[in-house]
């Protein structure tokens, strides 16, 4: 990450305040010089920063899987941006913000940033931020599966326009967001006023202790069939058995595993932190120490139509494989 350019992905439904958020963030010195890629040039002015427009264009790869498609538009723009920066044709910048269209599925964007052969060596996803409109957010979640996905993969959920909605409705929306994605930082913002640190640091935080994640029933109360749950394992987990299981799970059910974030005890001093969105898993990171006293492996899943019990039973059977195989 040290020598790769951080990329912040800003997603959120139409009119939920993405551009307002970006404008406000960029006005803060802590953001540094930033290049911005937007799908449409909105009315909100983004002064003094490099703003480029991306026409949405998707390349479907051989697999035909939506989440692994490459966003050709984004690839070309980012490559061009990096080339011209390297040649000194552009003012130097130290961060890139990518704003998606409201209807965009964020998975192909993440896939492009993390797996495209050139880009993955030059950029690193710093945070995925989703704006959710307090007035229409619940309806949007009911009607548009893309918005549920935007919430599920976010590292930070920002509830906008809370002053325009009834307090009870805002609270209900926040409960729903929390149930859909217990991993994300959740807060209200007015006119994009948020500290950059709160947004930018959200991705690198470790998943909280299992007790902090909501109980399974809280995640089930939705027609969209998306639920979040934590599986906890005692004792060291054999990495190969886990990787074998997760690659097989993502092969078979990747489209319905919207998010996996794990802190794994692999028998070393610190845990391994793993983060995946559908079929795309970020390179795992070895942490020097555990974030708290709880040393158990915990794996947070956000799934669509897959029950906790099925995941847990299967994972435990595969973890036992390592024991049977002679470790």
């Amino acid at each position, binding site marked *: 990450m040290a020598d790769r350019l951080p990329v912040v992905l800003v997603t959120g439904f139409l009119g939920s305040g993405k551009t307002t958020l970006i404008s406000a963030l960029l006005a803060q010195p802590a953001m540094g010089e930033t290049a911005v890629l937007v799908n449409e040039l909105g009315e909100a002015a983004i002064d003094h920063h490099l703003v480029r427009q991306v026409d949405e264009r998707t390349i479907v790869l051989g697999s035909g899987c939506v989440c692994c498609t490459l966003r050709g538009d984004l690839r070309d723009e980012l490559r061009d941006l990096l080339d011209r920066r390297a040649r000194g044709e552009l003012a130097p910048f130290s961060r890139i913000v990518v704003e998606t269209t409201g209807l965009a599925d964020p998975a192909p964007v993440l896939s492009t940033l993390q797996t495209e*052969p050139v880009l993955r060596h030059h950029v690193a996803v710093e945070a995925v931020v989703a704006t959710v409109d307090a007035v229409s957010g619940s309806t949007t979640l009911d009607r548009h599966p893309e918005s549920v996905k935007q919430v599920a993969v976010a590292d930070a959920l920002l509830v906008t326009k809370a002053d325009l909605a009834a307090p009870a409705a805002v609270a209900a929306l926040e409960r729903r967001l929390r149930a859909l994605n217990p991993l994300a930082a959740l807060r209200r913002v007015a006119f994009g006023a948020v500290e950059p640190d709160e947004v930018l640091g959200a991705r690198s935080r470790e998943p909280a202790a299992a007790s902090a994640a909501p109980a399974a029933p809280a995640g089930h109360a939705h027609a969209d069939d998306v639920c979040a749950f934590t599986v906890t394992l005692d004792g060291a987990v054999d990495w*190969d058995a886990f*990787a*074998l299981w997760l*690659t097989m799970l993502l*092969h*078979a059910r990747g489209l319905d595993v919207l998010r996996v974030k794990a802190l794994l005890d*692999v028998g070393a001093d610190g845990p391994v932190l793993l983060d995946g969105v559908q079929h795309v898993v970020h390179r795992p990171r070895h942490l020097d120490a555990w974030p708290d006293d709880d040393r158990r492996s915990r794996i947070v899943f956000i799934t669509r139509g897959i029950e906790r019990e099925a995941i847990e039973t299967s994972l435990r059977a595969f973890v*036992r494989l390592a024991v049977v195989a002679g470790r």
Partner: protein
Amino acid sequence: MCPLCGALLTEHWADAEGAAGRRARVLRARMLRRVLHGFGVALSDWGGTAYVLHDGKGRAEVVHDLTTLWARAEALAGRPLDPLDPDLLAALGRDG
């Protein structure tokens, strides 16, 4: 690109952790065989750098990472490879 086999040498996330060395590789192959057994797919190590999948009809596939392995094994097996499949889990339990 590997000059011998033409494989793209980009490291898969699953290979970023875990023990290295021959014994670790043997145990990894043993686990894979247990899972693939019920699907009629056999696995052998190919020079410590890849695996070869075989079916009962003489077909073989060389694979370099786990993601590719499941896709190719499924094609050879002719049916879905799903770790949530109760029959697979029951078979793994019997092995133990």
